């Protein structure tokens, strides 16, 4: 089932939780709502669920206006951050709940309920825990029960509110991979709220990034990572180096694709650590700066160098492959040349992208 979010706004007193957010989630898609705390992502999820009502705008479920429908009528499955399992019920009673509370006309027979519960517990690999109580299970197991419970009523939409954030790192990673495979198996339209960019980029078909109640960017993980639409998205998606400066020349006169911006205009440049080239030799075009190595983090497949630019002492982070690092035999204190392979420029207040370039000097 598709979900259309149209011009949703929500205000809590003087705090703007959501400001005119519109987006469409396709049938069977897994969309991640990503943003820092207070960005409005959970509010948007609760509005889609019908647990909150928007001040303005509407929610269309499968093309049908549903803004006024109660949560219990929307046919959704919801998974909470802290599981919200019914503590006085066994695991199988928890999963059966959504079926048992249905009105007599629609309620399946006892036998059917039992079979459906067993089927779901098998799906989440907890069939041997049916008679236990939630407090006897680990966090990861509880969240799997919560997922089974949400799926019991065959919802057309599955909404997940930071479902893995209360779990430790290893379980979190396992569980999200497992959840993605469940999604592929069932094909339920899914919205996942998270503040973990790695989780969003890894699991989702598309990622919507929210900041201060506004939609900053929506797109596939690759688009978002490779072409951030704003400095905020750039910063939020991981390590990035910032360069403040002024344009030396009018960008359009440089003849580089998509560039606009006048000479002498203040600008901010973003370069990801792996986009910084380092070498002991000056590059052929001579466009590089000298930096000294402050610290080397060499645990892991990529080696991270913390650098200090000669002259102004600005900190910069660069990443390079382990092999190349070993060839260069770098040690802290070495002076090396640094230049960006690519850079993205925004004007000073971050409102406008000036240049998305794949081969410019600073």
């Amino acid at each position: 089932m598709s979900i259309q979010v149209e011009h949703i706004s929500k205000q809590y007193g003087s705090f703007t939780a959501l400001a005119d957010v519109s987006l469409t989630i396709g049938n069977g898609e897994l969309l991640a709502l990503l943003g820092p705390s207070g960005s409005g992502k959970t509010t948007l999820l609760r509005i889609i669920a019908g647990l909150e009502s928007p001040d303005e705008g509407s929610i269309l479920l499968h093309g049908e206006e549903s803004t006024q429908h109660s949560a219990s009528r929307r046919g959704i499955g919801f998974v909470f951050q802290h599981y919200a399992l019914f503590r006085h019920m066994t695991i199988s009673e928890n999963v059966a709940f959504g079926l048992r509370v249905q009105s007599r006309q629609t309620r399946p027979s006892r036998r059917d309920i039992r079979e459906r519960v067993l089927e779901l517990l098998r799906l989440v690999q907890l069939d041997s825990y049916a008679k236990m109580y939630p407090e006897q299970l680990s966090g990861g197991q509880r969240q799997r029960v919560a997922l089974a419970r949400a799926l019991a009523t065959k919802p057309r939409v599955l909404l997940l509110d930071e479902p893995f954030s209360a779990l430790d790192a290893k379980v979190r990673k396992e569980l999200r991979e497992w959840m993605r495979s469940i999604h592929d198996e069932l094909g339920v339209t899914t919205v996942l709220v998270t503040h973990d960019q790695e989780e969003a980029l890894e699991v989702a078909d598309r990622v919507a990034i929210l900041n201060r109640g506004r939609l900053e960017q929506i797109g596939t993980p690759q688009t978002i990572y490779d072409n951030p639409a704003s400095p905020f998205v750039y910063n939020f998606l991981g390590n990035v180096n910032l360069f403040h400066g002024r344009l030396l020349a009018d960008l359009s006169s440089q003849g580089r694709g998509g560039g606009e911006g006048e000479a002498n205009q203040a600008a901010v440049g973003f370069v990801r650590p792996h986009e910084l080239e380092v070498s002991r030799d000056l590059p052929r075009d001579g466009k590089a700066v000298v930096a000294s190595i402050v610290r080397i983090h060499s645990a892991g497949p990529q080696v991270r160098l913390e650098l200090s630019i000669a002259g102004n002492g600005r900190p910069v982070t660069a990443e390079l492959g382990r092999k190349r690092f070993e060839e260069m035999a770098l040690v802290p204190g070495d002076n090396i040349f640094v230049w960006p392979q690519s850079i993205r420029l925004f004007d000073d207040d971050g409102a406008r992208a000036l240049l998305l370039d794949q081969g410019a000097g600073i």
Partner: protein
Amino acid sequence: MSSRFAIPSSALLQPSIQQRVGRVVLITAALLFLALFLVLPVAAVFAQALSQGLKMYRDSVRQEDVLSALRLTGLVACIAVPLNMLFGIAASWAIARFEFHGKSLLITLIDVPLAVSPVVAGLMYVEVFGLHGWLGPWLSEHNLHVIFAVPGIVLATVFVTFPFVARELIPFMQAQGSDEEVAAVVLGANGWSVFWRITLPNIKWALLYGTILAASRSIGEFGAVSVVSGHIRGQTTTLPLQVEMLYNEYNFTAAFAAASLLTLAAIVTLVLKKIIEVTSGVHQHMEEKEVKS
């Protein structure tokens, strides 16, 4: 960390001589105090009640007045306690689950009966429902008796026992949060089945705990009831009032025999309370939550 900063574990586990002496002294003092002011008086009640022999005790308890006082006390408790369960659940549900204007006022109002002397509570009802009170003329026109009758006693008892259920439930429900109820709603449950299937099972021990406290207070309430009852022997005397009347008549054995019934009720309450605490972990749960938050 270097061993220089580590405290030898023996110092933590084994108290010094001074500490041990201090502990013994404190415990002894507390126990002596309890024995003198609690155990001894309670024992004295039973000793006095049984001082004329078991037969005399049985006769005293079986007096018509005592029996009717016992019945009235039971009746009042049977009306006041369920009413308070209802009010208590409604008030705590509202306070723990919703945000509304005047919420802190409501919380304060719930505590009023604990702050006000029961005598004042009784007088308030006399002022409202008494013959010369605000509603008195209207009530007597319709031949309704509140003051110096059973309804007044029930009202006074409801008033003084009002906070017990609510005060037990509010922090408990706040600590539990509304996640499970929201989950139930999303799964398609209506308000009624959310209450019966989720809310009530979750609060049942706290509710029972509060109910027992309220019941114990309603059985033992003296001050407020005394003002509104009118002390009509065999009609509007509850057990605590009966004890006082017998005592004022210098009928000590009968007074203490009746008092021993109240004491027994109190002991039963304490035992039930303890059982609930142990089996349900009501209070442990709340302490854990507080530590976590």
